[in-house]
């Protein structure tokens, strides 16, 4: 079936979001966010795939060969870097939150109201 990869992406999205919603540990929550990230990578890359296409590196294949789409690969590269940096920031916040609240449970970190 030619839509399997898209279903994988949808499934990863669902699983990751469920993890975020049900998480009792902020580190686990951040990893669930990386699972959702993975769904974006899968979708982006599957969108660009060409059947029987080669990688778009012309070092050893002729320039006229059929290759997969290099643009989505560039987009995914950008995406990976962006999301890794967001994870770094989130981790820093969680480290400080742990020091402040003495816990990493997202449900226990509410100080703003009753």
């Amino acid at each position, binding site marked *: 079936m030619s839509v399997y990869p898209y279903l994988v992406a949808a499934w990863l*999205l669902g699983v990751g979001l469920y993890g975020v919603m049900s998480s009792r540990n902020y580190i686990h929550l951040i990893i669930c966010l990386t699972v959702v990230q993975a*769904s974006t990578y899968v979708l982006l890359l599957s969108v660009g795939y060409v059947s029987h296409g080669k990688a778009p590196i012309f070092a050893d294949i002729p320039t006229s060969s059929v290759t997969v789409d290099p643009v989505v690969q560039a*987009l995914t590269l950008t*995406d990976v870097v962006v*999301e890794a940096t967001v994870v770094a920031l989130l981790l820093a916040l969680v480290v400080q939150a742990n020091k*402040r*609240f003495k816990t990493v449970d997202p449900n226990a970190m509410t*100080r*703003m109201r*009753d």
Partner: protein
Amino acid sequence: MRQLAPLAVAVPLLGAALLVFFHTLLPRIAAELLALGIAIAACVMTVLLLVHVGHGLTVYWFGGWHPRQGVAIGIDFAVSAVGAGLAAFVSLLMVLALVYGIHYLDVRHPYYQVLMLTFMAGMVGFCLSGDLFNMFVMFELMSVSAVALVGYKVSEGAALEGGLNFAVINTIGAFLFLLGIALIYAHTGALNLAQMGASLRHGGDDRVVVVAFTLIIGALLIKAAIVPFHFWLADAYAVALTPVCLLLAGAMSELGIYGVGQVWFTAFQGALGSHAHVVRPILVGAGLLTALWGGAMALTEDHIKRLLAFVTISFVGVFLIGVGLLSEAGVAGTSVYVVADGLVKASLFACAGILQHRLGKVGQHRLHGRGGGLPATGIVFAAGGLLIASLPPFGPFLGKAMIDDAAIKAGYWFVPALVAVASALCAAAVLRAGARVFLGWGDAGSDAPDLADEDTEPETRAGHDRTPAIMFVPALALLAGALATGVWSGLPDLAATAARRFTDFGGYHAAVFGTAHHLGSATSSAPEWFDYAYGAATVGLAVALTGLNLWGVRVVPGWRRASAAAAFAIAPIRTLHSGRVGDYTAALTLGIGVLGALLAVSLL
């Protein structure tokens, strides 16, 4: 001249990098002044760009990569008056925010300045961009800078909570944005908005387009904080440093709405334009819900910054109504309203910051009557509250009148009344807070629960016994700006012309792909008598609500029971704002799902 477009983004970025490179050599004041200088330069550049763009659309291809075979292979900045105007507004707010923070703000230089500069660069880039993935990159640049700035006060638990909620929700929004980009790229083969629009015009409205539209609009509405995606905003805006609040409330929220408009008018209009009568009620409905929700919540808040955050949410709802009407007049009204209202909100946040600096607290009940020594701040605060109530003939009134007219023209006759109620609620909240704090009216310490506004470390250092001019002047300048936008008679027509260019689908594509497209200028009708009536009614209602809230217990019989009933009614909504990121995520997921279902069912 056209080079100003990339320079307005690249100069702040380069400046930020150099500030870090030389940071061991720079004393604090040097870093502050350098950052301010760069921000002023960016502001000047965007204003010049706005003047240069005029009625047209300036297109700038990065790297000199012009389209080949009708396909855009590079990234472009497609600048029209609305985009350049918004960019100029954003950089102006940044200048004032940086001025506000000079010397007194207790921050680690140069990192704070670096974060502010990159925040500005991201916002300006978002406004000017003509490529969907580039918009995403700028969106993320904005968000990452904002996360660091919101969570800045790491010694306060509330700040960390706000920063974490903000980061998680916005990140999920970014992922949804990416999924939408992937789908629309799959369908149209384009990342450039103009090319996408042309392709969609031929390609038709099938499932992929609807799902992509849902995801992209959903991500932008999360950023804009429309109900039910808004829960993160109150947590975040309440704890950020004051200059950062200025920017967040005055600029960042509006950018989400700008994004919705940009994406619709340049790209999706091609495929879904014939179904505008279906998309419109969904957007207008969401906007109305947000406006009323924000207003109601604002009235229940004790913490002044949180109150202002809900006021921000309420106004974003009105902006969405304006843009959601999917018409030229709606966009024109929203442009004016965004500027005028952004200035007012920034001014109010600045006043709250002054209160924090002088008195160390931001809870109304803790501050009750203690603001008596700050008359100037009190006057600015009260004026801000009245402006929110759309006091004619000033800026916010003008903007709202234009949106109301557009709504009535589109057949939504009930919108002006509901928006008036929402504004009255917000204004009453602000005026009541002002009366309690500055005048000592009303009862001290009663209804609202006392929040933990634990300022374990004040955000400013030194000088707590007087208000420095550096903090007061921006507050006053912002208020003056809001007053002035209503008085400037040429503004509505300029906005209308700009809106015509913004909504012009064919012309955008033509300009990006080579041919210039002339559009006549548009005019806007002056506010009608009923707009003035609505304005006056809103002010009256706001003042009445304020009075009732302050003295109702003594004056009106049965008030105690009525307010208890109101509190009971709103309690479930209050509990939804639990501060738990899991709840927020669940609401977000449901919201996107429902949005998608509504669009799918009605468009197919």
